[in-house]
C-alpha cells in the first residue's frame, strides 16, 4: 500500500491517480475528502492527533505499507516583510511540521513491511532562492534538510527518503498565478519548460522502483537548476 498525503488536489491528487491507475494500492489522505477514484482517509497533517488517527486506521488495514508520498502543502507568494504571522505559521505548520509528523507516524509502518520509500515534496524555489517566496522557501528548505537527515536515520531499516522539488506545474494550485511570474521561474530551470503533473508522477514511480535503490537523501529538482 502507498500512502499519499495532500491527495485531494494538486500534485498529490495527480500522483495518487497515476499510481492507482497503474494498479498500485493507494490510500489518499487529505483534510477534506473529495470525489476520488482511490480510497481516502481524512487527515490534517498539521494535527498530530489527526495523523495518529490515520496511522491507526491504516495499521488496522493489516497490509504492508511500501511507501509514503508527502504532497500535502500550501504555497504562498509574499514578500517576507509583508507576510502576516498567521500566514507564516500556516506555511511552516503545513509544509514542515506536517512533513515531520507524517514521516514520524508512517515510517514505522514501512519499517514493519521490511523497508520502502518516502518521498517528500520541496520546490525548485529553494535552490534558486526565489524572491517573493521567502517563508515558503524556508519551510521547504526545512523539508529538504529533514529528508536528508531522516534518510540516514532510516537507512538501517532499508527505507529510502528523497525529495522531489518541482517548479511551476500545471495544477489547480497554480491556475490562479500570474503567467509572467510562472514563466520567470521556468526560465531559471535548466530545462526551460513548464512540466506537467504526469512528469512528476513518473518521477515518483521511478523513485518507488527498486532499480533506484541506490538513491536516498537526495533532492531531485524537476527541470534542473
Amino acid at each position: 500500500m502507498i500512502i499519499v498525503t495532500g491527495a485531494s488536489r494538486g500534485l498529490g491528487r495527480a500522483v495518487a491517480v497515476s499510481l492507482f491507475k497503474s494498479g498500485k494500492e493507494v490510500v489518499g489522505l487529505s483534510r477534506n475528502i473529495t470525489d476520488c477514484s482511490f480510497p481516502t482517509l481524512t487527515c490534517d497533517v498539521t494535527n498530530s492527533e489527526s495523523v495518529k488517527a490515520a496511522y491507526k486506521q491504516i495499521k488496522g488495514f493489516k497490509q504492508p505499507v511500501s511507501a509514503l508520498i508527502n504532497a500535502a502543502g500550501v504555497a504562498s507568494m509574499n514578500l517576507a516583510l509583508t507576510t502576516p504571522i498567521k500566514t507564516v505559521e500556516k506555511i511552516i505548520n503545513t509544509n514542515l511540521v506536517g512533513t515531520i509528523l507524517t514521516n514520524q507516524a508512517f515510517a514505522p509502518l514501512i519499517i514493519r513491511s521490511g523497508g520502502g520509500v518516502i518521498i517528500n515534496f520541496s520546490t525548485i524555489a529553494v535552490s534558486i532562492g526565489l524572491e517573493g517566496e521567502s517563508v515558503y522557501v524556508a519551510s521547504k528548505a526545512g523539508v529538504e534538510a529533514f529528508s536528508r537527515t531522516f534518510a540516514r536515520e532510516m537507512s538501517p531499516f532499508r527505507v529510502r527518503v528523497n525529495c522531489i522539488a518541482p517548479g511551476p506545474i500545471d495544477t489547480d494550485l497554480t491556475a490562479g498565478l500570474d503567467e509572467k511570474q510562472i514563466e520567470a521561474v521556468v526560465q531559471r530551470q535548466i530545462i526551460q519548460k513548464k512540466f506537467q503533473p504526469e512528469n512528476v508522477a513518473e518521477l515518483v514511480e521511478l523513485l518507488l522502483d527498486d532499480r533506484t535503490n541506490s538513491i536516498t537523501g537526495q533532492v531531485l529538482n524537476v527541470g534542473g537548476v
Partner: protein
Amino acid sequence: MQKLEQLAFETIVNAIQSDAIEIRYETPLIGAGSILDSMKLVEVCLALEDVAEERGFEFDWTSESAMSTKRSIFRNVRSLVGHFCEQGTKE
C-alpha cells in the same frame, strides 16, 4: 500490573536479543553505557507497540517524556517498562 511489567520486560529482552549482555532493569537504553544503537531501540519500541495492541491499548513512544534527558522513558529498561505499564493501565 505485575504480569504486564513482566511481559514488557520479556518483550524488551527478546527484542534486544543479546547473548553477550544480561539485560537487567537498570540496563541503560540511551546515553552513556547504552547497549543499543538507534536501530535496536526502534525495534524494541515496535515490539512493545505490538504487545500493547494485543492487549488493547496504545503504546506512545513519541511523548514529551521520551525526549527528556532526566525523565526519558529510554533511561533504562525500568523506565521503559514503567512507561509501558503506565499507558497500559491508563486505558
